[in-house]
């Protein structure tokens, strides 16, 4: 099982190497590229070595290891403290100090420190997470190699720091691996804090006041979660509870209410759930690869990871129901708000928040089928969202805007990028693509819990239908003649888009296999039962997919030669060019067609306030329910 250690340590080593040698551009590029390949292939090797998805434990006989973890903990805390103090952030400073105090009391408070026999482990769920981190993360890093020079070209005001940028990203990936393989809660906490730190560094990368502000916002909200997490550790230490994830999961739910709740609150912050969702929107200021990374394979996925882990404890509890309500409320409100957004990245951000809400909901409902849906959602969301961010980043470079309205007719201007975005969007909401498969499973699963959950999902998913469809429509519709695109798309960007598109489509064909190979063993190990798939449904879904892929072939039908191309209907006011019409007071006017944003109906501010109020009330209810 050295591969696990390798997966954790290799990115860390890469981070160090790039930090040391990254001054040389060529060398750095080569290093980053090789590194991304190794990370992705390493994850795949893991699959090959452990095809059955058996749970395996890693034991270490090194007594200094725990002390090293503690040392690193202190180091990370110190770095955070320096950042907070130098940034004159009083709240953040207070939070860091609070967290340090909690950890100090845990470690040095004279409690019998729980010994964890196997601090690292691997089961089929961590393998799925490892693939997401490795394959998608690797592709994003590969993309970043091509993207970053463009980025600096378009943003000359941003000081170059690609060396530290790539080092941080590798550190991030290493921390994510550590997070999903940790069985020891202290180790998990360390990885948790490192991801917080890395996200701060990456968000503040542009060095603008806005970036700085948003980075501190992210830090503040995530530190809130960090403090909660540290509180959970202290509670466990005081009550002599287990420190091993595997033991916590197997213990009686009633005895674990407080620590589980605290860690779940930490999960809420990381998964950008309301009322902690603001940081994810702010994180858009960072370059595209960072957004792609934060939204798809890392960071937010760390948040939902703990929920899925704790799912058996949350099943059939009031706490679980309340947390599920927070998730579903986030889903509903974020989906509705996304309708009013025209900035592509904000739409993606709200959609991420919404989908994570759905994952949280499923995990908190916690029955086998719901967890099955949650894991499928994690997989499909990671792939499709990474693809969307990367494709939108490319589109932004070639059209000079990230506004959806400016993507009009992208299908003619940049067919490949447009196709990638279309596949990504289809992957996010259309039958029979992944997210829809999962949503279908989610609704079935949530029906076994309280009906208010699936009802809210039904409303939320109709809202997603609206904003995704109009975006697709915008890309497909051509009103003006295509203006020449500026700026080429780099090879690396194309590769990443191609592979992620392939993955998005391929995964929908392959999901029954993923389900039976990876998710089923996990559920069996957790619950002793698993979900059986309806064969007819799979056949229908597959044939729908085949049809969607085959439909473009109908364009080759030769009867279409008889087609007469004419002008669009403009009430008879057409002028020869298709985007002009005879205007009032003489002359001609260009046509402009814009999508609906329904900004009064789905007002961002009002809905955000409503969502915040609802989720804060739910949090308060949680505190009332869970008394230590």
């Amino acid at each position, binding site marked *: 099982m050295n591969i696990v250690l390798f997966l954790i340590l290799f990115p860390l080593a890469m981070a160090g190497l790039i930090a040391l040698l990254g001054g040389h551009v060529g060398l750095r590029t080569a290093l980053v590229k090789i590194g991304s390949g190794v990370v992705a292939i390493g994850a795949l090797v893991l699959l090959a070595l452990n095809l059955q998805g058996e749970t395996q434990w890693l034991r270490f006989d090194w007594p200094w290891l725990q002390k090293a973890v503690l040392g690193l903990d202190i180091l990370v805390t110190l770095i955070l403290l320096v950042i907070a103090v130098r940034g004159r952030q009083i709240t953040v400073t207070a939070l860091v100090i609070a967290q340090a105090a909690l950890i100090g009391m845990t470690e040095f408070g004279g409690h019998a420190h729980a010994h964890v026999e196997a601090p690292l482990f691997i089961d089929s769920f961590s393998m799925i997470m490892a693939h997401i981190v490795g394959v998608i993360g690797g592709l994003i890093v590969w993309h970043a190699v091509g993207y970053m020079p463009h980025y600096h070209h378009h943003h000359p005001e941003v000081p170059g720091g690609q060396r530290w940028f790539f080092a941080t990203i590798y550190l991030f990936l290493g921390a994510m691996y550590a997070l999903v393989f940790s069985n020891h809660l202290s180790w998990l906490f360390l990885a948790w804090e490192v991801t917080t730190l890395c996200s701060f560094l990456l968000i503040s990368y542009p060095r603008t006041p806005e970036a700085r502000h948003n980075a501190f916002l992210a830090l503040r909200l995530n530190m809130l979660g960090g403090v909660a997490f540290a509180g959970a550790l202290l509670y466990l230490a005081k009550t002599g509870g287990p420190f091993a994830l595997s033991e916590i999961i197997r213990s009686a739910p009633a005895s674990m209410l407080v620590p589980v709740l605290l860690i779940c609150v930490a999960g809420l912050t990381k998964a950008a759930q309301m009322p902690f969702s603001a940081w994810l929107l702010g994180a858009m200021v960072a370059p595209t690869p960072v957004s792609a990374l934060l939204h798809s394979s890392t960071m937010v996925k760390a948040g939902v990871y703990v929920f899925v882990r704790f799912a058996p404890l949350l099943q059939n509890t009031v706490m679980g129901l309340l947390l599920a309500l927070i998730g579903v409320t986030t889903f509903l409100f974020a989906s509705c708000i996304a309708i009013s957004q025209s900035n592509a990245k904000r739409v993606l951000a709200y959609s991420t928040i919404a989908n994570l809400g759905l994952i949280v909901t499923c995990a908190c409902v916690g029955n086998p089928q719901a967890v099955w849906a949650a894991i499928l959602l994690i997989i499909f969301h990671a792939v499709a969202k990474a693809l969307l961010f990367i494709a939108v980043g490319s589109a932004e470079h070639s059209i000079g805007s990230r506004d959806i309205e400016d993507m009009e*007719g992208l299908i003619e201007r940049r067919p490949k990028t447009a196709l990638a975005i279309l596949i990504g969007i289809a992957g996010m909401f*259309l*039958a*029979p693509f992944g997210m*829809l498969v999962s949503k*279908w499973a989610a*609704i*079935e699963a949530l*029906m076994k819990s*309280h*009906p*208010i959950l*699936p*009802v809210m999902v*039904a*409303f939320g*998913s*109709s809202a997603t*239908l*609206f904003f995704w*469809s*109009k975006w*697709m*429509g*915008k890309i*497909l*519709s*051509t*009103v003006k003649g295509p203006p020449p695109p500026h700026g080429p798309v780099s090879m690396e960007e194309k590769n990443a888009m191609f592979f992620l598109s392939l993955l998005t489509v391929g995964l929908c064909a392959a999901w029954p296999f993923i389900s039976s190979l990876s998710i089923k063993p996990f559920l069996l190990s957790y619950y002793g039962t698993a979900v059986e798939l*309806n064969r*007819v*449904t799979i056949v*229908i*879904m597959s*044939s*729908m997919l085949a*049809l*969607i892929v085959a*439909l*473009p072939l*109908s*364009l080759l039908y030769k009867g*279409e030669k*008889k*087609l*007469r*191309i*004419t*002008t*669009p*209907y*403009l*009430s008879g006011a057409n002028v020869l060019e*298709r985007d002009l019409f005879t205007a009032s007071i003489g002359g001609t006017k260009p*046509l402009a*067609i814009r*999508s*609906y944003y*329904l900004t009064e*109906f789905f007002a961002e501010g009002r809905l955000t306030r409503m969502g915040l109020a609802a989720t804060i009330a739910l949090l308060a209810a949680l505190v009332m329910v869970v008394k230590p």
Partner: protein
Amino acid sequence: MNLTHAILAALLYIVAAPVLAGLLAGVDRIISARMQARIGPPLLQPFYDLFKLFQKERIAVNKTGHFFLLGYLLFTIIAGVEFFIGGDLLIVIFALALGSVFFVLGAFAAGSPYSHIGAERELIQLMASEPMLILSAMGFYVATGSFQVHDIWSRPDLLIVILPGMFAGLVYVLTIKLRKSPFDLATSHHAHQEIVKGITTEFSGPYLAVIELAHWYETILLLGFLYLFFAPWPWLAVLALAAVYFLEILADNTNARLYWQWVLRSSWIFTAVAGAGNLVVLYYLSRGGTP
């Protein structure tokens, strides 16, 4: 349901649905005309129109728009087939939504203002009607313990008795789906509309015929949804469906077209009250009154 039955049911739907829906459209037009003190067209008029449209010249704004219409037709048929072979209700609803999205994309692709506005309005209507459809599937699930149409179909008890809210909600949403006033925002069977023909503005001849055909398939599928409420008593079901359809025609003839805000708000509220209310009541009843 075994394979032979399933194939037969699918074939029957593919062949019989347009015939049935066409006749229904004919009756609809005659009844509407009578309500307006007119004689109205012959019963077979919808078929004359359809076949005529297939014979018209093919014109289009660009070479891609109509490709999406094929998707509209195909996925609507798939939704219907999945329904009538007794498949998963949620898949039916998603396939239906997929078909509608294809339709909308086709209209967007035309890049013409009126079809664009029509497409946006169609999306609003989709957003308005979708929750109720999903909720009705949930209602069937709570009542019968299954999402499979086959299981729901073969239940001996009359579902309308325990799902009256769902039925009312579906009838409400049916008005949107059938493009009847006051909810004929995106396009209308009548001529005078502020956005011309809305979503169908740019589609003519055979392409318009495809849209009409898909709409017919959709109509029968939705009526099938309503049939489920009365499944054990087919005669009552036919009677109820006739009454519902008449009600839709009546609503069409006694209402002005409303604003999109009103359509969206009212159908979401109606869904939340009738649909979700029904669901929650059922949930607590099934748990013996204890929350």
